């Protein structure tokens, strides 16, 4: 059975704050106990294959980095209607089909989850490094709290673990060698 709620972390963990989504997924896995009707997925930087992960979901929560729209560390929430307003134009490469095109394609095919929300954090640095900037790191607990709240509002069971599990993040330089 496909879990009815998908939390999709998108972004590139090798490009600092762009990796907010995957970083948040790893932190959620370690710090929260979440019901099995929720799937947490680090989707990296998908193209239109994003659509393949939406089939059979009722709720899609996208975690992404934002390049503008506020101060670094600021958390913004976009509902589906607001996402629709930012339509891309001409597309050249397989990467450009961005979020809006993914959602539109899913709608055209009749597989778009009825509820879509994007939780974004404005980044400050997008250089080549697997570490988040200090502004995003300090925004992370607030972001996780907010995500947990959105999950609860959608009927999911979410508890904060009293003792977190080890953080599964292979990109972290402190992760022991394989």
């Amino acid at each position: 059975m496909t879990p009815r709620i998908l939390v999709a972390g998108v972004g590139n963990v090798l490009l600092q704050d762009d990796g907010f989504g995957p970083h948040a997924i790893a932190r959620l896995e370690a710090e929260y106990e979440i019901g099995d009707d929720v799937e947490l997925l680090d989707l990296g930087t998908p193209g239109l294959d994003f659509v393949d992960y939406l089939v059979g979901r009722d709720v899609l929560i996208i975690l992404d980095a934002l390049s503008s729209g506020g101060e670094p560390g600021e958390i913004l929430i976009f509902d589906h209607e607001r996402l629709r307003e930012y339509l891309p134009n001409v597309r050249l490469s397989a990467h450009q089909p961005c979020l809006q095109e993914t959602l539109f394609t899913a709608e055209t095919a009749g597989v778009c989850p009825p509820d879509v929300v994007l939780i974004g954090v404005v980044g400050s640095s997008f250089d080549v490094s697997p570490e988040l900037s200090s502004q995003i790191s300090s925004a992370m607990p607030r972001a996780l709290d907010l995500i947990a709240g959105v999950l609860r509002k959608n009927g999911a069971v979410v508890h904060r673990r009293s003792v977190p599990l080890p953080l599964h993040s292979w990109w972290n330089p402190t992760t022991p060698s394989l």
Partner: protein
Amino acid sequence: MATRINIDPVTRIEGHLRVDVEVDGGSVSKAWASCTMWRGIENILLGRDPREAWLFTQRFCGVCTTVHAMASVRAVEDALRLQIPPNAQFIRNLILINHALHDHVVHFYQLSALDWVDIMTIPRANPKTASSLAESLSDWPDNSDKQLAAAQARVTALAGSGQLGMFASGYWGHPAMHLPPDVNLIAFSHYLQALEYQRKALQVVGILGGKTPHIQNLAVGGVMNAINLDSLATLNMDRLYTIKSLMDEVIPFVQQVYFNDACAIAALYPEWMNFGGGVHNYLAVPDLPLDAQASAFDLPGGVILDGNLAGAHPFYTAADTDFRHAVTEDLTHAWYKGSEPQHPWQGETQPQYTDFEENGKYTWVKAPRYDGRPMQVGPLSQVLIGYAQGHPLTKKWTDLALAKISAIGKRKVTVNDLQSTMGRHVARAIRCAMLSELAGKHWEYLVANISRGDTAVYNPPKFPDGEIEGVGTHEAPRGTLSHWVVIRNGRLSNYQAVVPTTWNASPRDNRGQPGPYEMSLLGNPIADPEKPLEVLRTVHSFDPCMACACHTFDPSGKAIATVKVL
């Protein structure tokens, strides 16, 4: 009077591909391809453990995750002269095949079909006549008038609601769009069905790889899939048959739907076999190794120069001696320090940004060269090289495609006509059909090998003191991929990825030779400079994927295509 068109669709941080063309007398007279994002991610690998490199390289690119993981472990194994067990070869091959089936189908239906299919004509189609036409072209069961009517209703509803979304920005009604409404309806119906089948191929990758889009099962020395036919937690008979049944659904879609649609669209746009040839030097590496030694392959590789198929030069190993020595990267027109061509093992990636200077540096893409020549890579290269060598599977599907296109278009089409914009689409469909056959074959190889009692999947690597070099290749969906590593005392001291789009989107070099995108655009007709559909058709035919992606969502990002009269 010349007109300059700049297509720079992203002002967002992820900036990817920018194309500039000059149009003179209704066709393209000059072209520049530029990547607007720095691809210096390799630097993050320096000093790291070579056994972990693949975890990082599969994040180079969000679409081509698996292929960068595979090239990376192969590069380290090459440096160590480390063979992997046959089971590991077959499991890797099955992952690569299914990844490619997914990727090719997505490219055709989701990323390029709308360059040729005018969906705004679909409300005028007749589902009954469309169904008869579709059934005359293919045995596919899902072409009934009912199914086509349902697809038509979707377009009509979208058009009626004003919620056209992505479709609102298409070049509908463009004079270069001329498929009959019935054909557009069939293609749109298959676009909807493709979503269902591409997902099944992805599920196979997920079962074998542990997860998608980032597989977890690789290791330098093999794979980490424990094999025990009786255990629930491992790769057992049940999982193997789940894979088989998923592939049994994908294969007919590729052979009866995608392959036929590509042939039909080629037949109905015959003029696009006259444009877009560009660079007629072709490069492909052999792939899908058949044994532990990788002494034989199911996909052929080699080199063709100046379009001379008769003189094709084959490669017999995954990284032929010729290939190891012939590859260099030129930095003359790329935003990096240095100008002398560098071999990837000596390659450096030190940025030197100047702004877009059409006679100077103008892109973040280096210019890979083979013996100093620009090369085209991708399915077309592999198909031409296989065809020239008389490779049976390549010949079978290529001849079938040529016969179909000739019959539908009532005009004789030859293998040489494939050296064109439309030829790249046809070749991708040919390759996909070949891979769909090989999917079943490699599944049988794996099952037969396990049934003989062989459950080995991994040979542990040992790193010597001192310096070793290696190259790992993979004939990826977009063409030849190579990762070049230098390992000193068990740590990475250099890492260079020469990716397919680097070959194809390459800028000019120190001798002024343009890259394949740039050459292929020359002479393309441009009916309306405000709507440069023809440029998109040729660029999309390569299946561009600018290495590495930054996925930040920018609420203020607005796309632009600007036209300027010179």
